C-alpha cells in the first residue's frame, strides 16, 4: 500500500498535472492533491499522484540525526 517514491517537479503541465523526474525517469502525474507546487519542489508519488511535498530541510535534519547517532557508535564497527 505504500510504494511511493520521492520525485522532483520539473514541469508544470496545467493546474492538476506536472512532469516529475526521479533518477532520470520522467512521468506526468496528477497534482490534484497538492496545491501550489513549484518547479524544483519534491513530492511523494504513489500510483501516478503526488500525495504530499517532501521538505528538504527536514530531510537534511533527519540525516543529520541519523549520522549523529550512528557516529557515536562508529568505533564499534569492526574493520
Amino acid at each position, binding site marked *: *500500500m*505504500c*510504494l511511493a*517514491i520521492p520525485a522532483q517537479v520539473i514541469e508544470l503541465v496545467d493546474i492538476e498535472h506536472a*512532469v516529475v523526474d*526521479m*533518477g*532520470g*525517469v*520522467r*512521468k*506526468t502525474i496528477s497534482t490534484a492533491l497538492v496545491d501550489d507546487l513549484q518547479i524544483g519542489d519534491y513530492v511523494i*508519488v*504513489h*500510483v501516478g499522484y503526488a500525495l504530499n511535498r517532501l521538505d528538504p530541510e527536514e530531510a537534511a535534519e533527519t540525516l543529520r540525526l541519523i549520522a549523529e547517532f550512528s557516529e557515536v557508535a562508529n568505533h564499534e564497527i569492526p574493520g
Partner: protein
Amino acid sequence: MSPRRETYARKLDLTRGCVEIGHGGGGRAMAQLIEELFLAAFDNDWLRAQDDCARLTVPTGRLVMATDSHVVSPLFFPGGDIGCLSVHGTLNDVAMAGARPLYLAAGFILEEGFPLADLQRIVASMARAARDAEVPIVTGDTKVVERGKGDGVFITTTGVGVIPAGVDISANRARPGDAVLLSGSLGEHGMAVLAQRENLSFDTSIKSDTAALHGLVATMVAAVSDIHCLRDPTRGGLSSALNEIARQSGVGMRLREAAIPVKEPVRALCEFLGLDPLYVANEGKLLAICPAAAADTLLAAMRGHPLGREAALIGEVVADSHGFVEMETVFGGRRLVDWLSGEQLPRIC
C-alpha cells in the same frame, strides 16, 4: 549459370503495402516477397541459390545448435527491435556453450495486414545484426496467418556453431569455490521494453542492451580455457540464470549486492514500479563461472572487450544442498534471491 530472375508485374509496395495471405501461399506472390524483401536484405550465395535448404561446410569439432522464438511486444523499442533481437538471442545461445556461431536460419510467421514497411525495417535490422556478427542467415521460411491470429510477426531463429577443442562449458559444471562474474549492468532490455507498454507511459532514456556476445565469449575463452559455465540472463533475469545453474550443478551461491552494477534510470524505473532488477531481462549481458584462481584474468579479459567494460566479480559458488542463491545486501544483511515461478508484476504495495 545463375538462375533466371523472375520479373514481376509490379514491384512490392514496401511503403504502403501489407502482408497478404497470398504471400504465404508458396506461389509467385511468396517468391516475390522473398526476393524483394528477404533476399534483398540478407543477400548471400546460399540464399541466392533459392533452395529450400543450405549446403554448409562445417569445421571439425563438436557442433552446437540452438533455437529461439521471438514474440516481443512492442516490435520496436529503444535500442532495438524484434529483428536484431532474434539474431542476437540465438547467437548468444550458441555462444553460451563457448562455441563460435557459424550459420543462422530464420522462420517468419507474418500476420495478414502487417505493414511491409515495418517488415522491411525488421529484416534490415536482422541483416545488419547478422553482418556485424559475421554470421550469415543461410536459409529461412515464411508463413502467413489470418488477421487476428498473430501479433504482427513472430520470428524463430536457429543457429549452429562449433566448440573449440578443450572447452567444456555447461550448467552442471559450477563447483564450490568458483567465482561468479557478470559482464555489465542489469535490467536495461526488460525495462526499455516495459516502459513502452501502453498504460505505463514513462519517459526514460533506457535502451535495450541487445547485443551479440560471441566476440566477448571468444576473448574470454582465449584468456581462460577452463570456464565452467556461461549463461545470458534473459527472461527471469540474473536470478533465473543463477538458480538454474545452482540446481543443475547441485551447489549454492553467495552474491554481493554492492558489486552488482545497475544504472540509475533502471533503478529508478524499478523503484517506481516496485520491481527488482535481479529479475529483469537482459539481452546483451552474460554470467561466467570459473575457478577462483582464474577470476582476475577472466575479469581483465572481459573488461578489455567493448561489451564487458563494466564487468564485475559479483560472488562465489558454495556447497549448499538446498541450492540457495543468497545475497549479502549493501547493509550487511542477507536475503535469498528466490527463483520466481512467473514474471514479476509491477506493484503498488
